[in-house]
């Protein structure tokens, strides 16, 4: 699968980012989120609003404080059902509050473990192959 970087309008120049449309499948709805492929993040980190709107039950998850992007947030981690294009997988997602960021983050254990990703920043493409066992 080939995906294009997303061009985002900036105050002085556009910025192209390697983001993907990753869906969170909950009991109430499927919420498709703009998600940054973050090789520096060990885990998937999403805003708690995604869990709220999708209907992902966080009630049994312990709350922990984690640092993201220079700030600390409260996170509750559960196994969530995620989908990219036709590929669906179950992986831990930390749903965080507050979530001051524009994107969700898909990281090493919850995303890159499942897919082989070739990022070409010059041509602004992500070539992604599912890791089938």
């Amino acid at each position, binding site marked *: 699968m080939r995906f*294009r*970087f*997303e*061009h*985002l*309008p*900036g*105050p002085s120049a*556009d*910025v*192209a*980012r390697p983001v993907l*449309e990753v869906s969170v499948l909950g009991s109430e*709805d499927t*919420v*498709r*989120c*703009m998600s*940054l492929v*973050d090789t*520096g*993040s*060990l*885990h998937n*980190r999403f*805003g708690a*609003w*995604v869990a*709220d*709107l999708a209907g992902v039950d966080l009630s049994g998850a312990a709350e922990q404080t*984690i*640092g*993201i*992007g220079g700030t600390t947030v409260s996170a509750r981690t559960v196994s969530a059902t995620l989908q990219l294009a036709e590929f669906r997988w179950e992986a831990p997602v930390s749903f965080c509050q507050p979530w001051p*960021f*524009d*994107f969700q*983050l898909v*990281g090493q254990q919850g995303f890159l473990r499942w897919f082989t990703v070739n990022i070409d920043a*010059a*041509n*602004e493409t992500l070539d992604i192959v599912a890791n089938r066992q």
Partner: protein
Amino acid sequence: MQQVVHLAEPATPPEVERVGHDAAELLRPYRGRYVGRLDGRIVAAADTPAEVVVQLRADKVEGAVVFRVPLDPSVDPGGVTE
């Protein structure tokens, strides 16, 4: 002795830049707001993601991606998170 290869900075193809610029211009009026986008069109916009999802549900729109258009997309939330 290992041969060193000096690399010139690769250029982004003009067509990629043009298509990307058009996509960015679509988003420009919504900087700082949450949007729902489907098939290259903005189908909902609001100040919160919940309001966007409510609009999408009311309009029976399925498959839209929901996100906040950054005020400054050069701000990087990624990196070490532990």
